[in-house]
């Protein structure tokens, strides 16, 4: 299969189940909402070492947020509910509450709710106030900029992590140019986020290592500098491989995100240094969700 001269490998992306929640962060201006959101989603690229994966889902207009201020929707993913609770408390406490004028609300309601403001309220040292509006409890925590308002709980929903595709390019410059466009397109898909810096992974990994203490290590078969030295997946003309990893709230969200991302990359074609699209999998051993590239693009 080829699109615009770009070869599509007959393979699949392998993804695994996660737990996720969506948060709405508001602030006096969109700029400050972004500062809080960027801080919260920082160092949240992979659960391998970050404890969670998180990304910005999109901007919200004032009429779309609970308090009528500009906001940012973010999605945070973890391997278990308890890990999610731990990360929520730390990240909202240290990144959102510390951002001037910010407030934090739940963006996903389900029958499984986990603590949000109810864990952060103790920062109020007894001066915190709870308020119930239309059946939802909020915490008002007095802080130095005024008041930090936070919804008491947020809903946990089943999610999927690890949707991905690989872009084989002539050089890193060619690859990045195409991948940046793909990440922009994926950013418009509801319920899907790219959690790595700029949405692009420059150092995709394989499971395990020759060193016992390493849970993951470099994926040598995709390393251009090791061509000729190891059994490689790369042909002569490929000088860079970039990966776009997508986490989503549903299979449909990931499938849509992969589709728009790959299509965007393929628009560049071989003349602009994009040769091949593949996907990362572990032979079906890692997760139950398999996103076949050719099925998605059919």
């Amino acid at each position, binding site marked *: 299969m080829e699109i615009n001269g770009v070869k599509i490998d007959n393979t699949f992306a392998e993804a695994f189940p996660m737990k996720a929640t969506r948060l709405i962060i508001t602030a006096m201006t969109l700029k400050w909402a972004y500062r809080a959101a960027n801080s919260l989603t920082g160092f949240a690229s992979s659960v391998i070492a970050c404890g969670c994966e998180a990304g910005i889902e999109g901007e919200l207009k004032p009429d779309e947020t609970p308090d009528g201020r500009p906001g940012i929707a973010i999605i945070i993913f973890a391997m278990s509910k308890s890990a999610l609770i731990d990360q929520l408390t730390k990240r909202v406490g240290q990144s959102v509450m510390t951002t001037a004028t910010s407030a934090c609300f739940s963006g996903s309601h389900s029958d499984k709710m986990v603590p949000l403001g109810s864990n952060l309220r103790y920062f109020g040292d007894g001066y915190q106030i709870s308020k119930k*509006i*239309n059946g939802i409890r909020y915490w008002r925590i007095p802080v130095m900029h005024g*008041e930090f308002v936070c919804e008491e709980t947020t809903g946990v929903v089943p999610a999927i992590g690890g949707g991905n595709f690989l872009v084989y390019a002539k050089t890193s410059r060619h690859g990045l140019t195409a991948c940046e466009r793909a990440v922009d397109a994926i950013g418009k898909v509801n319920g899907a986020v790219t959690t790595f810096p700029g949405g692009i992974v420059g150092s995709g990994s394989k499971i395990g290592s020759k060193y016992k203490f390493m849970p993951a290590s470099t994926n040598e078969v995709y390393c251009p500098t090791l061509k000729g030295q190891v059994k490689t997946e790369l042909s002569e003309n490929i000088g860079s491989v970039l990966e776009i990893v997508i986490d989503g709230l549903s299979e449909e969200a990931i499938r849509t995100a992969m589709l728009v991302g790959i299509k965007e990359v393929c628009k560049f074609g071989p003349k602009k240094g994009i040769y091949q699209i593949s996907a990362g999998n572990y032979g079906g051993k890692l997760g139950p969700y398999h996103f076949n590239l050719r099925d998605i693009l059919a």
Partner: protein
Amino acid sequence: MTALLLTLKKQPELPVDLSPLTPDKLKGKSKAQISAIKLINGKDKTPVSTLFSVSGSDTENIRIQRSCRQLTHIGEDMSFGEIQVRGDAGNYLGKHMHGGHIKVSGHSGDSTACGLKGGLIEIDGDVGDRLGANFIGELHGMSDGTVIVSGNAGHRVGERMRRGTIVVRGHVGEYCANWMLAGSIIVLGKTGNYLGNGMKRGTVILTKKPRHMIATFRHCGLLKIEFLRLFFKQMALANKEFNFFRNFGPEAIRFAGDVSCEGLGEILVLKNARISK
């Protein structure tokens, strides 16, 4: 199915307890069974059919026509459905109500919404004393739900109130939020003396500075209370009656107290609140 229509034949001389006539208690009952229900009328018990002409069959949607102040305990303990009262309602309207909706086109008596636990009560006219307060002998006033009064309210609005929201578009009497434990009271008109006396927690939102503030409240200054943005927007989204909240901003003068108790309650006097009734 048409709404169950109870039209008062003649204004009774003594109070009539209407607590048996709620959607919960009338569920599954025929018109004949409803007509035979005996209501406490003074020291007597009088059948419904003697006091009201009964028509319609939808017991989840009850309409009381030609209502007067002698009809008490309307909607007591109800948990679902709707009661519309055309005319005035007596004391204890919506007492211990759990859910559902009561709408009164006229005035309502004392202890309206006392011990309210949920649901919505709307009164187009005035209400008596002890709106949303505790029922006699009980420790707590209303613990959830929403009450909207378009007219004025008497003394001791929200006394010992524990949760929920009271909105009074007119004036309130003395001892508003007396010994209030939590919850929210919004008053668009004037407030009487001793506002917030003994208040432990909770929020009173005013559009006019109180004529008299008790000495045990501390002035915190003019502040931007970010929570008010959320509160006003969510209230307006939940009920079109609260659309006027969209005109309110977050700026308010805050008074904290009552410091003679825990001192964690607050009275917020909104700055530049535009009221369009």
